């Protein structure tokens, strides 16, 4: 099991999908801390460090983000848009993880700088593939 002080932000509203993501990570032998934001606004607050998230010891900036698209309050693509406007977040890889195979979503995500566009459910294989290309969670 590899562990580092790097972390992942998972933006996902469906608790089942959160469970499956965590299981996939286990299967891939990855165990960085995973913080979950359950909607788009929370994701932005976390990344901006507003409110309770200003405590960066407890809520560190992640190395990579897995972003669902169909989120309450703020849509995943809007979160992505917002991330692009934040220079301090430019280093973070964003992987879109969604159930939507819509071509228009894929294109928009690409335009907004997503590193990859992944379809649920996440598998260990999928995670190893994408995380190898960036993020460097594996030692």
């Amino acid at each position, binding site marked *: 099991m590899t562990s580092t002080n790097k972390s992942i932000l998972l933006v996902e509203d*469906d608790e*089942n*999908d959160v*469970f*499956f993501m965590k*299981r996939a990570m286990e299967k891939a032998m990855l165990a960085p801390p995973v913080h979950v934001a359950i909607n788009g606004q929370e994701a932005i607050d976390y990344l901006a460090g507003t409110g309770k998230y200003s405590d960066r010891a407890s809520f560190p900036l992640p190395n990579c983000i897995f972003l669902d698209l*169909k989120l309450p309050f703020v849509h995943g693509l809007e979160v992505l848009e917002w991330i692009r406007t934040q220079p301090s977040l430019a280093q973070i890889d964003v992987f879109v993880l969604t*159930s*939507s*195979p*819509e071509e228009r979503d894929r294109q928009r995500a690409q335009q907004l700088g997503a590193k990859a566009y992944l379809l*649920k*459910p996440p598998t260990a294989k999928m995670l190893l593939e994408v995380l190898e290309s960036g993020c460097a969670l594996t030692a």
Partner: protein
Amino acid sequence: MHDLIDTNSARRANARNGPMQHKPKNRGSLGQGTAEDAWRFLAAVVEFSDDAIITKDLNGIITSWNKGAERLFGYTAQEVIGKPVALLIPEDRPDEEPAILARLRRGERIDHYETIRRRKDGTLLNISLTVSPVVGADGRIIGASKIARDITERKLAEQALHASEERFRTLADNISQLAWTASDDGWATWYNRRWYDYTGMTFETMKGRGWESVHHPDHVERVKRKLEETFRRGEAWEDTFPLRSKDGEYRWFLSRAVPIRDQEGNITCWFGTNTDITELREAREALARSHDELDKRVEQRTASLREAIAQMEEFSYSISHDLRAPVRAMKGYAQIVLEDYGGLLDDRGRDFLDRILRGSSRMERLIHDVLTYSRLASCEIQLQPVSLQKLLQDILLEYPELQAPRAEVAVRAPLHDVIAHEPSLSQAISNLLRNGVKFVAPGTTPKLQVWTEMRGSKVRFWVEDNGIGIKPEYQHRLFGMFERVHQDPRYDGTGIGLAIVRKAAEKMGGRVGVESDGITGSSFWLELPAPPTS
């Protein structure tokens, strides 16, 4: 009777001596020579005048009768001298002569008195009389001298003119337009009856510039300006403006005027008409309003329609997401149980989990296909030339089940271009190909043949497979929704794939069909318009 001008004796003298000739003793004027010569000269003047000159005494007896009178009345001097002048007067005017004589006695002259006299042959003629008293040497009136002029022609002309004017007036009063004449400076000189009927005015109030008073205050200035300007230029005038009726309401009139010129080309007056176009204007306005109304309604309907379509798209988009999530959960957990606890189960237990997994997968495919179908059905498409050749290559690359070693797809190039909507066409062809490789006998490698055929202005795209075929009796149901024409569980299909192909074909203005003997495979075809040949 005092003897003064005895033209009759002069006449008698003429009769004896031949035509009287003026022979002045000296050359030159009347003033020279004897008194007798002078009188003779005057007598000759009277005698040979073209006008009828007649004298009578105070009892109305004709005392002299010149050549002009002979010509005019037809009587010779001999026939009438000594007879009463009443001979010439028609019976229906018995009082005329006495009235004339009475005036004469008073010393009055009668000037250009128009009356009617009768000729010798009985015909009537119009004459103009000038009657002067003849004064004797002692200053008393002894008779009268009349000059009669034939005014028959003039009278006829006058009557003709009058009749013509009557005709014009009748015409002018009965046309439906208002009509008028005006002088060069816009002063009205005449109106037809319609004008008075409409305005309720009289000539007194309308003459000259009186017409300004029935114009609408908002328009009268511009009308005056244009009229004066146009009249000045001598061009035909046209204008549209409201006029007030006798009830006080305003109606719109299209008005025109043309100049009337004399022989030298100078304008003598203007003739104008006004035509009531109120109803026409109202009709036009109503039409314009209807048009606007219609446009608005069309816009509204289109907007509603667009909204409905957008809503449906939104609906399909979100419904698929919302339906997928629980299915994904079901599948995921079943998978986890199988992975983590499968060992604790017997075969039956594991089989149950497999069934759950298969069911979930099927559910996912159904949701996907229904979404595809609804999106296809509701989208607005634009048709363009599409290269089937290229499209096919892309599709073959996209689906592993169409590639070696899993299947063989032989394309008889070149494939003809078609007019289509590329995404829909791609969907349709993918479905046809993937169907083609799916329904084969176990152990057989699916082999597909793909080609195009020109049929008039259409292109028919063929996919022939070596599959299990479709029984002829089921072929008519093949393209329906959720229709599956076999029950073999080895072949998993949602029953929507071909419905999608048919919907796509419909939207692109094409058709689909199948040929199969039910045993040796099937041939599916998709027909679309060919691009116009260049």
